[in-house]
């Protein structure tokens, strides 16, 4: 029984957006990281989403589509080269390769993700109101 309509889908979406916020936080935190376990500077991570069909028994028509994180990929674009001979990770020519994190991209992603999260929360709240109203039938 599904008392609150849309809750399964909204739950998946909230989870997906939260993962995106986590990855944005990771990118911003590592905006200056020039040394990683794999060697080389930190590389920006990108989250991509995919749909997930939600099974509904005995209901004809199009299936509902949830959302989940498909995968987290690495942005392979080269980072900026900064001349800083004092830096421990500087090459022989005094250039340091910085991570390919662009703070303005990350901030835009951060805002988009948090707004999407809010929109999904509004759906959950609305579904709850509807369920409560349904329970009031006949009272």
């Amino acid at each position, binding site marked *: 029984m599904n008392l609150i309509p849309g809750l399964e889908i909204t739950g998946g979406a909230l989870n997906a957006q939260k993962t995106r916020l986590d990855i944005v936080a990771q990118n911003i935190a590592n905006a200056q990281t020039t040394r990683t376990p794999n060697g080389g500077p930190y590389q920006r991570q990108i989250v991509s989403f995919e749909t997930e069909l939600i099974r509904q028994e005995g209901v004809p028509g199009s299936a509902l589509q949830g959302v989940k994180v498909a995968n987290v990929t690495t942005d392979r674009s080269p980072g900026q080269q900064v001349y800083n001979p004092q830096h421990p990770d500087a090459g022989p020519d005094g250039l340091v390769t910085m991570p390919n994190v662009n703070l303005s991209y990350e901030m835009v992603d951060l805002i988009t993700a948090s707004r999407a999260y809010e929109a999904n929360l509004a759906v959950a709240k*609305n579904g709850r109101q*509807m369920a409560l109203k349904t329970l009031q039938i006949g009272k």
Partner: protein
Amino acid sequence: MIDPIFQSDTYLLARKLLDATVMRQDAIASNIANAETPGYHRLDVAADFAQQLKAQMASGDLAANSDRLQPHLAEDPNARSMRPDGNSVEIERELLAMNQNAVQHEFLTDIISGNLKQLRMAITGNTANA
């Protein structure tokens, strides 16, 4: 004896439309969840449900067929994608549709409650409890 009261057109119509609002809430949840999924097409309750309901109301056989008529979901044929990723969801429109749907749901539950209250009043004769 009681059965005909539950077979009144208003009651049956409100019941069917209430099913549709719950289904629409599911569809809107799916649309908002997939607001950023490339190639996603917005879902809604299929338009032929309203047409069938209207036709049955007009012909007066809603009571006989009410169980066979069920709302179902379909991709919204009127939604056009304005975005390069082919997604046809506009989040503002979805939020407005969601609010409208909530009001509709409230209205329909009130109608059904009103119907039940009338029935209770007729049985008990007690207007204070109704």
